Each structure stands twice: as C-alpha cells, then as structure tokens.
C-alpha cells in the first residue's frame, strides 16, 4: 500500500452502518430462538463459576466459550459478514483458531484455574463475563437500536469477545496467546463502529485496553 500514511480507518470501511446492523438483524431473525439457549448457557456458566469453582468448571468454561467462538466463526463471519467484507473469511478462520486454542489450553491442557474471589482483577473478570452475558446484549437498546439488532454472546462477535476477556482475566494464569484474537477484534470492531459514527464505538476498545492492563497488573510480581 503506497502512501500508507494518508489512509485513515474510515478508508477501510466497506459498508454502511445500515448494512452492518441489517446483517445483525437478519442473523437474529434467522437464528431465533437460539438466543435463548445462548443466554441460558451464559447464565449457567456464570453460576457455575460463582457457586462451584473447581476442575470441572475450569474445563466447562473454556469449552462453552470455544463453542461460542466456533458458532460466531461459522454463522456470522463465514456465512454472512464475508458477503460484505473481503476479509470476512479470514476473520472466520481467526475465530475458529481461537476456539481450537481455547479447547487446547482450557480442556486438553487444563491451563485454566478460575478463582472468582482471588483478588480484585479476578472479580473484575467475572464481572466482565456477567456484563457480556447480561448487560451487553441490551446496550443496543440504550443507543436506540431495535430489539431485532441486539447482540448476544455466542452468536455475534463483540459480546463473545468481552466474555472471553472476562474469563481470561479471572483465570490464574495469563495464557497470553489466547489474548491475541480477542484483543485484535476488540480494537478492529471499535474502529469499524467509530468509522460508522456508532455511539458505542468506544466501549469495546476501552474494555479491551482495560482488560489487558488489568491482566498485566495481575501478572506483575508483588513488591515489598
């Protein structure tokens, strides 16, 4: 790309805000009532983490989120987003890789040890997970979008990413490779929404940066 310094994020926006949100709406209408299943699974996951932390939960949590990443890769990126974005299938591949990586780290290698009460950062992680499952789907209503355009975790990328950031924050070990795709999408999605002048454009990048900062803080060795 020559004269790269003359490009701005909006130069890469390929579609209108209307097309973007219609894509969400059409996905929601096509998949309803899968949303209820995703919500029940999310709330159940939250309850497990809070009420029954342990080895079983440490494997169920990444497995559930991996299922969400795979679903988003297929139903959103591969089947729909790729019709309006030339990189849509690359995003599908990245989300599928993230799903496999979470299964590998969390289920096969059992690297997740979730302790919700283990300090401020872990509590913030669980709160973020709860936010993604319960509050974020309603964020669209707060900025005036119709119910049909609301975003539910496990079916659409943004709440899936936020839930994953929450889980990664709550885990005892950082698992840094698992942060690459969620953090990358968090920033990219924010840029897309900003280019479309969407009112909630700053939310996902802010959450992403805060989550990374908290994780770094948690990993820092304690000083006397």
């Amino acid at each position, binding site marked *: 790309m020559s004269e790269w310094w003359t490009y701005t994020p909006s130069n890469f926006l390929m579609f*209108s805000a209307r097309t973007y949100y219609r894509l969400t709406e059409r996905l929601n209408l096509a998949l309803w009532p899968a949303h209820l299943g995703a919500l029940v699974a999310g709330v159940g996951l939250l309850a497990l983490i809070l009420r029954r932390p342990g080895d079983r939960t440490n494997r169920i949590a990444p497995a559930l989120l991996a299922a969400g990443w795979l679903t988003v890769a297929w139903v959103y990126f591969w089947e729909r987003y790729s*019709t*309006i*974005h*030339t990189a849509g299938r690359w995003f599908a591949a990245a989300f599928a890789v993230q799903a496999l990586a979470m299964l590998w780290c969390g289920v096969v290698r059992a690297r997740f040890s979730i302790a919700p009460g283990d300090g401020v950062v872990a509590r913030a992680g669980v709160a973020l997970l709860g936010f993604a499952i319960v509050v974020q789907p309603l964020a669209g209503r707060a900025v005036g979008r119709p119910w049909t355009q609301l975003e539910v975790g496990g079916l659409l990328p943004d709440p899936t990413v936020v839930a994953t950031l929450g889980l990664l924050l709550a885990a005892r070990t950082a698992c840094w490779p698992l942060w690459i795709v969620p953090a990358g999408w968090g920033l990219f999605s924010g840029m897309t929404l900003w280019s479309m002048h969407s009112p909630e454009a700053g939310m996902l990048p802010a959450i992403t940066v805060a989550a990374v900062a908290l994780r770094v803080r948690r990993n820092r060795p304690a000083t006397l």
Partner: protein
Amino acid sequence: MPPPGPIPSVTRREALRALAALGAAALLRPASAWAQPPGPVLTRRIPSSGEELPVVGLGSWITFNVGDDPEARAECTGVMRDFFALGGRLIDSSPMYGSSQAVIGFGLKNLNRPAALFAADKVWTSGRDGAGQIAETQRRWGSARLDLLQVHNLENWEQHLPMLFAMKAAKQVRYVGVTTSHGRRTAEVENLVRTQPLDFVQVTYNLLDREVDRRLLPLAQERGVAVIINRPFREGALIRAMLRRPLPAWAREIDCANWAQFLLKFIVSHPAVTCAIPATGNPAHVRENMGAARGRLPDAAMRQRMIRYVEALG
C-alpha cells in the same frame, strides 16, 4: 490481499417480494420527487471515440455493498431504475467493493439490462490473475462485455495495462483507464497519462479537494483522456456538512435546487471532466444527483464564487 467473499444470492421469492414492495413505493412517491431542471441531459464526449456520456454517473462503493439482503438489493435496483429513467448511463464498480458487483448484476437482470448501460469496472489484484478476476467480474455483472476496464488505484498497473490494451485490441473491452482517489499517486497518474494510450483516468475532485485542478485535469484535456471523478461528496461527509448551511439563493442561476446539485455542477462544469460518479443507495438521492446533469452549468466566474462560498463556510 484476502480472497473475495462468496457471491451473495437471494431466493426468487425474496427478490420478488422486495421488488413488489419497491414498485408499490414508487407508485406512492410524490411527483415532485421526480422534478428535474429543464433541458436535455448534459453529455461530454469521450475524446478517444467521440461517444457521448451523461455528465453524472453512478458509483457503487459502500452503497451497493449490501450482501444478500433482499430488501436492500431491491432498493439498489430502484436506484438503478431511476438512474436509467433520468438518462444515466455509466455505472462504476470494482472487485474491491464487496458484493457491489453482484448487486449491480442483480439489478440489471431485474431491469432487463437497459441498453443505455455503460459498464465501468476495475481490475484490482497484486497478483498475475487479472484475467481471471475480470472473468469473475463479468459473471457478477451478468454481462459478456464491460465498456471500460480500469486499473484500480494503479495496483500492479505494469502487469495489468498491457493485458487491458490487448483486450481492447481484441474488442473484449471498449476503453481502458486507471484510477486513484484521495489525491494519492497523482504524479504517477500524470506520468501514465503522458506515456500510455489511456482512454480514461479516474481521480478525486470536489469543491474542497481540488489538487488535480492544477496539473492533472489540464494534462488529461490536452492529451485527450476522459476523466471520471470519484468522491464528489467525500463519501457523504461533504454533503452532510453542507446540509447544515443554507444553499445560496444564487444557486438558482445555475439551476441548483439542492446541495447535491451545487456540488456536482461545480465538478462537471470543469472542461476536462467527463462525468462524476456519486454513489448512493437511496432512490431520492439519485434523482437529486441526476438533476445536476440538466440545466445551466456555472461559468468560470461562478465556479470561483462557489469555491469562495463553500470555503467561507469553514
């Protein structure tokens, strides 16, 4: 560069339902929405052939990239229908524009392929498979022959231009050109205008982005190269900014009823410009835009007045 996504498709039932809704909307539309300045459609000659083109065409960046949404596809078809009904001819797209080519193809099929169509598209690949990409473009348009093929953003022009000239010699395409936008690589475009037998160049020009006015536009005129203007409204930002300001009363002297016509008439009144290609997915906007292809155009003094007025708005 990632491969293009799948070609969006809609079922026959979805398409018919959406088109029926569009037809009903057209019947309910007030007659004033069709009001156009008096006189015939203004045209400019393509220097290399003498063929006349209306001074306002139709772009498809962002606005026609609606995927397989039947409702949005029907609206785009409505835009094309009104565009042709008001005397438009040139529609421009690119493999870079997502589903735009397929949406144009869908619209043309539903409009029974208007004979007036002047199909302009591009080749956009850093690899060697330009011919394969062009074949895919033709398939998406549903058209055996494209009128104009351009090298998009000068991407790999060393490879593609000889191929396009060979296609022209074999009568597989009628015109060859290159494009750039945002004022990028204009020195390179100038060099190509001087050294290559181009029929068209496509560049950005509007009331605020006038860099090409200094050298490139006079050069194209001198060398007999037709000029297509992209980003006439800066992807809508310019017109959104202007809509907050009053249209000057003297705009009536050049038959402008709205800001779209004011901005477009400034562009197409430049003697080097062949046509401007505002992109829209809104039938009301295409009717406004096509109004700029009729009536009086500003002279040199009026063009300076237009610049002063818009610059003073800040």
